């Protein structure tokens, strides 16, 4: 059995992200160990706390939150990419804090560590 890590670069309102969620879910239900998901570039928008997609559309951000709850899946937002898109978890400025609690802001070094921990790093 392999360990897998994922890099996600697509935003929640793209169907490419639904594909990524389906692939990650397939891995988890097949008992493949997913050591973590690293969100980079526009992918960090998946971790926004205040996303409001129309009710009748696919709620990508909520799906990530569910995977985190159900499988304890680590969800890392690249901190630099997040800052460039207005996302922050600054505890000194409650108004600026807008990263959902299921996600962790991490440095790019976390991507290196995921690559080391995992047998395979899949970019989606």
């Amino acid at each position: 059995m392999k360990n897998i890590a994922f890099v996600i670069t697509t935003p929640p309102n793209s169907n490419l992200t639904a594909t990524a969620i389906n692939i990650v879910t397939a891995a988890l239900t097949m008992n493949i160990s997913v050591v973590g998901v690293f969100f980079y570039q526009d992918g960090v928008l998946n971790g926004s706390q205040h996303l409001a997609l129309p009710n009748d559309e696919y709620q990508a951000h909520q799906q990530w939150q569910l995977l985190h709850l159900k499988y304890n899946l680590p969800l890392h937002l690249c901190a630099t990419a997040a800052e460039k898109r207005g996302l922050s978890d600054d505890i000194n400025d409650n108004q600026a804090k807008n990263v959902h609690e299921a996600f962790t802001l991490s440095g790019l070094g976390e991507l290196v560590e995921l690559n080391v921990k995992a047998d395979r790093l899949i970019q989606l």
Partner: protein
Amino acid sequence: MSMLHLVRTSAFQTDDFQQCLNVLQPTDCIVLLDDGCYNLNHDLWQEALNKVALPALYIIEAHAQARAVTLDKEKINTLSLDALMTLICETEKSVTWQ
């Protein structure tokens, strides 16, 4: 060392699939997913068939059906996302063309 190519964009719109074919080796695998499904009807698909044996060419069935892309068993094999995960585990490495 064999490589899995995940192709997510349309060759009618971007250069990604052409670039994929430029690094493709005979022992590699190709999976068409998302808008990559449209490549089945692009002239470049013949190049893929020439470079790689048919058993190593796949398309995600639901992604093709969602786009009304007609499947032809002589040009490609269908795959579920579960089967894609298995294929990922069986191959050594992958590159995503998106």
